[in-house]
């Protein structure tokens, strides 16, 4: 299938339209919503770029942490992890748990809100 323009290029084109054409012609609360929409498209672009690396890395850590669950989806692995934490089988003292959650959350915030202050704190 064709990839010119790519999904990322199409999203960028719509973002350009919002930033340069539509946004400046809006007034009141719609101006604010246009800024939010533009930021959302930036998130989409980061998600397209980063998820292909960060999700398999998360999955590898989950398999490591949970043991033999290789046939499960990543979502199912996260459900299993949540259930074990809820049951008290895993706590902040469990080797590897906090570092896995930290790595996963850093990857998520890098996509969602890369300028968030808490991200800087986590990486320092």
């Amino acid at each position, binding site marked *: 299938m064709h990839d010119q323009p790519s999904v990322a290029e199409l999203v960028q084109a719509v973002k350009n339209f919002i930033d340069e054409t539509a946004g400046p012609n809006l007034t009141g609360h719609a101006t*604010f919503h246009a800024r939010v929409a533009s930021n959302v498209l930036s998130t989409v672009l980061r998600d397209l770029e980063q998820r292909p690396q960060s999700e398999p890395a998360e999955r590898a850590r989950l398999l490591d942490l949970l043991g033999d669950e290789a046939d499960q989806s990543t979502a199912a692995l996260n459900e299993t992890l949540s259930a074990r934490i809820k049951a008290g089988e*895993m*706590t*902040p003292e469990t080797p590897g748990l906090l570092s896995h*959650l930290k790595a996963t959350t850093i990857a998520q915030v890098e996509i969602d809100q890369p300028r968030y202050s808490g991200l800087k704190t986590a990486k320092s």
Partner: protein
Amino acid sequence: MVPQPGLPHRYSLALPSLTLIVAKMGSKSEFETGLQALFTRVFGQGHSLATFKRLSGGASQETWALAGSGKSTILRRAPGGGSEARSSAAIGLPAEAKLIQAAAKAGVPVPDVFHVLDDKDGIGDGFLMSHVLGETIARPILRNHEFETARSILSGHCGLALSAIHSIPTQALPPELQVSDGLSQIEKYETIYRAFNAPRPVFELTLQWLKANAPAPRLNVLVHGDFRLGNLMVDETGLVAVLDWELAHLGDPREDIAWLCVNSWRFGQSQNRVGGFGQLDDLLTAYNQHTGSAITAGEIDWWEMLGSLKWGIMCMIMYEAFRSGADASVERAAIGRRVSETEIDLINLLEIAHA
């Protein structure tokens, strides 16, 4: 009282599907006529309303600036003139008016509430208060040069204001106030979180950690419930008014102190634990001196973690409004991608607790 970019000014604490508010006073001319009659009734014959301007938008309580004949006032009114509280935790405007008046008597800086709307006014629930001048938006308060002196003394002012709020005798307060301590809040937010059926291991770990490490409760006091920049009016001399009392309840005094410390309410200035502008020791020194209590910084940690968790689940609630189809706006969709901000804050706090 102006919506802040990226952060909704007000959020519903109940599931959105349960809090549909129907505008009861749809006609604008009816509202205008009502406002004009109210203005003259309150300020006397010869005073007529010349301008009225909506200051806040969205689903929040309506805030209107009214002016004419050399008089000006602020009207805080239920959306569309309705009369029910907007969420299960909100106390309703008549009770809020009584609380602000009680706070004024106790020496808390608040606007002067001088008229509570009744049926005769015919424009729904609400009240009139004095027009206090100042800034409520976090960004200029934290960054602009004109607030430099204010920032240096604001922690002490907040400690003083909170000490006055927490010292108000609770027997005389409106019966609408709910009792809500730390463990009951965990239970409430856990129920909401579980209903979404969207497991987040960081929230799960936080819930279990908070339950396992819950501090002994302190005596119930009046808690403001949303004491943070956005709801604090500040001028170049410091704190001038504490606003938005609708989430007030009876509970643990440390909740208010810690909510102001939640990283989401530091607006990027993480190094300043108190609201992005100050240090906790300054707040606690002023607070403890005036209440005679001995709350330590270490006691605030647990409550700060609970605050981050609560804000994260509130973001899930707001995203749920989009997911369920109740609110199709891009803003409600986008807030779902802010939940991870609270997750990274919780990780940072859990790391400190287990260092």
